[in-house]
């Protein structure tokens, strides 16, 4: 096991983790501030990818596609918040889960009706479709490096917004204790609408940037939504810092599990057993991680509620 292999797998984990963060940041604030379980976050991620693929095909520029998709998804999120989500704020979790699960079905069928059941193509921009040599013997996809850069930039931006601005203070206050914040004069409703739209825009960035790595297809949001929920539960619901830590942990553990577990089992068991056991255990590894974190710290790594 060489250093460059470990390094490359770390980069892979980092790239995946940062994209997961873009999805989970919105999710954790919505859940932490308004106590709303929003399963439709994955649909906004899917919508972001579809908008990006369509606009990139029309304009011929990948980056124009990303920019347009962020605006388009934010607009859809605004409409969604005003028309549907506002009605379920006070409701119990089961009602919210049902309502937002219904939204998943509506979005999936709408996308199927508009774009068809086949996956769309979103190509890596040509200037980034070649490998970059980082160290002798370690070349890495230029596009993935760009994704890491964009994810890191947005994470820093989110951190500054939440921890260094008045708006961020309101958001943190709302996440910690909504009623108290309201009593102190924080316009929670408007702040929440803003948070929801920003969360959706971040999801759209993730969808657009991951489009060329995964595939732009119906149902792409559900797979990643589960991982995002795991990430925010690990990090502590309501905490952006926690969702970043949780996302990076999930990204790195998932990648490392897939990369190193099967060969580790190969040393212990017969090849047939190892080839069955390796992928199976690797796929449950992040849930094991979640179980361990919850056992040690039931509130997650960065609890917000006092």
């Amino acid at each position: 096991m060489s250093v460059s292999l470990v390094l490359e797998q770390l980069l892979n984990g980092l790239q995946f983790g940062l994209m997961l963060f873009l999805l989970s940041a919105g999710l954790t604030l919505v859940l932490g501030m308004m106590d709303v379980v929003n399963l439709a976050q994955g649909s906004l991620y899917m919508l972001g990818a579809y908008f990006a693929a369509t606009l990139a095909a029309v304009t011929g520029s990948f980056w124009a596609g990303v920019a347009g998709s962020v605006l388009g998804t934010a607009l859809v999120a605004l409409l969604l918040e005003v028309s549907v989500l506002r009605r379920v704020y006070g409701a119990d979790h089961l009602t919210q889960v049902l309502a937002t699960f219904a939204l998943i079905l509506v979005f999936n069928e709408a996308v199927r009706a508009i774009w068809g059941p086949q996956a769309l193509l979103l190509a890596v921009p040509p200037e980034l479709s070649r490998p970059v040599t980082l160290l002798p013997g370690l070349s890495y996809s230029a596009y993935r490096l760009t994704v890491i850069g964009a994810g890191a930039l947005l994470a820093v931006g989110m951190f500054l917004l939440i921890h260094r601005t008045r708006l961020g203070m309101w958001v943190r206050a709302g996440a910690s204790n909504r009623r108290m914040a309201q009593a102190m004069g924080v316009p929670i409703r408007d702040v929440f609408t803003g948070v929801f739209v920003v969360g959706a825009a971040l999801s759209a960035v993730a969808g657009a940037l991951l489009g060329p790595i995964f595939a732009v297809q119906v149902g792409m949001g559900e797979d990643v939504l589960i991982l995002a929920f795991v990430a925010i539960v690990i990090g502590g619901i309501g905490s952006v810092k926690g969702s970043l830590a949780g996302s990076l942990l999930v990204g790195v553990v998932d990648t490392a599990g897939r990369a190193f577990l099967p060969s580790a089992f190969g040393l212990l068991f017969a090849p047939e057993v190892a080839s069955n056991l390796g992928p199976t255990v690797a796929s449950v590894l992040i849930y094991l991680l979640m179980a361990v974190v919850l056992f040690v710290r039931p509130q997650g790594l960065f609890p917000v509620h006092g």
Partner: protein
Amino acid sequence: MRSRWAFGVVVVLAVSLLVSGLAGGQARALRIGFVSTLSGGGAALGQDVLDAFQLALRHLGGRLGGLPVEVLTADDQLNPDVARAAVERFLRRDRVDLVTGIIFSNVLLAVGDLVFSSGVFYISPNAGPSEYAGEQCNLHFLNVAWQNDNMHEAMGHYATLKNYETAFILAPNYPAGRDALAGFKRFYKGRVVSEVYTRLGQLDYSAEIAQIRAARPRAVYAFYPGAMGVNFIKQYAEAGLMQQVQLLVPGFSADADVIRAVGKPMVGVFNSSHWALELFNPINRRFVDDFRRTYGRIPTLYAAQGYDTALAIDHGLRAVAGDLGRKADFRKAILSGFDSTRGRVRFNKNGYPIQDYYLRQVVELPNGEIVNRLRGTIFRNHGDAYAGKCQLP
């Protein structure tokens, strides 16, 4: 009041029975339940099989073995549970005469028993699991394409001929993936440095590609159909591995659906197939030309298989004059061989083909089109490794 209400119901029932009886009496339509993967990452495969099946029906005048045909379609979403529900509905409610269409082996293995135990034939246009080739072979099962191992056996043999001493092999973790690597290893005489199984439907292969780079094998063999293949090959090229390690794939990972999505990086890739665009026989010429004209895209090997499935059913039904009740005769007629897009296809007693396997290479034509070209024959009259265990006559 009550009796008048009941009388009304009886009248309605009687009339509807009468009408349905009349409809049934007019012409005995052959009902085909077509369950396939029509959404998600495997959608292109199911769509190709379905489109080509419909094209063959048009070429045959809308009839199979002289019977008018009604095709009922269902999307299995690559989910065995969804497929089971669809097949259950086909068998119980729609009372189909025949089932076909499934792409993925894990889906087929989930519904096979259900179809066979209802006494209905399943004619496979694609999935060819080893489970149904050996001891569990079934009177009601026929595969017009190949047994899962075959394409990979051909590439294993080719890798041996090319003297690639070491190979890194990968496949999705599902029955056909395990069959694939078993098939490759059966004919590959070099050393397998690593055998990796990934989650079915996985789309990010960065972790696996890093392992390949670290292992420095002479060749990589990867079985990834549909969107999985598109992503694996794109990412393999983006990581700069195309120039460093020879990539070998079966035809599934290098046909028109993958080429359309990956583009130029595919040029030069060698792959195995039982069918090729330029096979010279009248059936294939007509199929390729009309498929391109009708659907505006280059047909894949999946499309050829869908087309052949209709031809096989037609051939079998002609032999029994449209009477699917004569099961043994229907089966025997197909097994004795039918004319397909690959010429005459013969079969083993387990219902799987004995046929030639070719080497193809992806090339760029002067007009910029990227297609597969025939480069030679790897196996002649090749059957599968499991037929000996099949107890059927």
